């Protein structure tokens, strides 16, 4: 197993850690942090496996990851603004309780 696989496994670990935190925590800011960690995990998997080539790594996943980083900050910015607005109107930085099922 070479180094690429090691980083790919780290990526999976980050993804799962983030998933656990997303489900477990109630505070919206923590959930946003969790999503970001998950995203980093996936991007790490993408690029790590691209380093399996002989010489220069495969540039297509690199481009995908740059796109992914920009998309991530866009989503984070929107999520933070929504969180602030929600906190102002409802008083709590948490998701409202689920509707009656």
């Amino acid at each position, binding site marked *: 197993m070479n180094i690429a696989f090691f980083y790919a496994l780290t990526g*999976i670990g980050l993804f799962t850690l983030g998933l656990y935190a997303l489900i477990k925590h109630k505070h919206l800011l923590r959930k946003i942090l969790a999503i970001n960690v998950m995203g980093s995990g996936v991007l790490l998997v993408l690029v790590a496996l691209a380093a*399996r080539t002989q010489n220069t790594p495969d540039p297509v996943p690199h481009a995908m990851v*740059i*796109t992914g980083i920009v998309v991530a900050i866009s989503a984070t910015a929107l999520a933070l603004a929504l969180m602030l607005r929600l906190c102002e109107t409802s008083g709590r930085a948490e998701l409202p309780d689920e509707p009656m099922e």
Partner: protein
Amino acid sequence: MEALTLLSWGFDVTLGGTLMWLAWRTLASEDLFKGIVLFIAFGLLMALAWVRLDAPDIALAEAAIGAGLTGALLLAALAKLESGSKESQPLQESTITKAMVNKSDKQILFRLLLVILLSVFVAGLVYVVLSLPLQTIGLSETVAENLDASGVSNPVTAVLLNFRAYDTLLELAVLLLALLGIWSLRSPSERNESASGKVLDMLTRLLVPLLILVSGYLLWVGGHAPGGAFQAGSVLAAAGVLLLLTGWRPGVRFAGLALRFALVMGLAVFVIVAVVMVLLGGRLLEFPLSFAGNFILLIEAAATLSIGITLAALFFGTRPKPAQSSASREESGAQER
């Protein structure tokens, strides 16, 4: 040579382990401020990981956008959250919940189930990843073959701005969309220039011109070395964030149509270039061989400006109130009735 490989292995294992540890501390930290700072550190270490994986373009983008700007956004949000909550809604995990030592059995069962499920999940994924072939070519050879025709010599820029430029175009739309969404949540804010400390002022005076220079350099060099529009744009945004922190606000004249033009320009130039090629009989985003490099630079230049301003505007949060033109004064007058 043995020692060197051992050393590099040791470095990577330490890096990977620290990444996991930082992620865990970020998410489990009691204090949100500490958590965000740890997240910024996590981002910087990710940038290091990208370097280890031979991805310097991504490292630049991660450091500037993933660690820097995202960190700034998170800290700003935390500050507004803290100043906004006047009542006793604490922002750390509330002391009330901390005191609830006796978690209900149902909760513990749920947690256990979740941990078991996720362990199975991780095990499955680990098995799947390890089952992939050790060596592969991917598309690196295809890219190398077509690199000359792309107009740039940095393969990542070639993919981003030529081979898969359509993705980049949509991505610029996503960035603009985020800003539109944020602006739609609140009404425009009045100009409120806040005074800032002398140190910040002086630092800003030094750094902003430097950042603008670095941004220009990154834009230019992206054609043949790591760099490009996103990296350059994010450095420009960092300059913008610094300016905003010192209390600078865009002139009232520029907060209306001019600002909107600047925000839209990257996407607009991209679309115009794309459509022009269609009108000339080619395909969407098909750059003619001789001009490809110039088109890419043009698009990247416009994009850098837009990305920089958009990211800085994302940080600022609210839309600056434009000067009241006579038309809009009529509108708001009519609305009040």
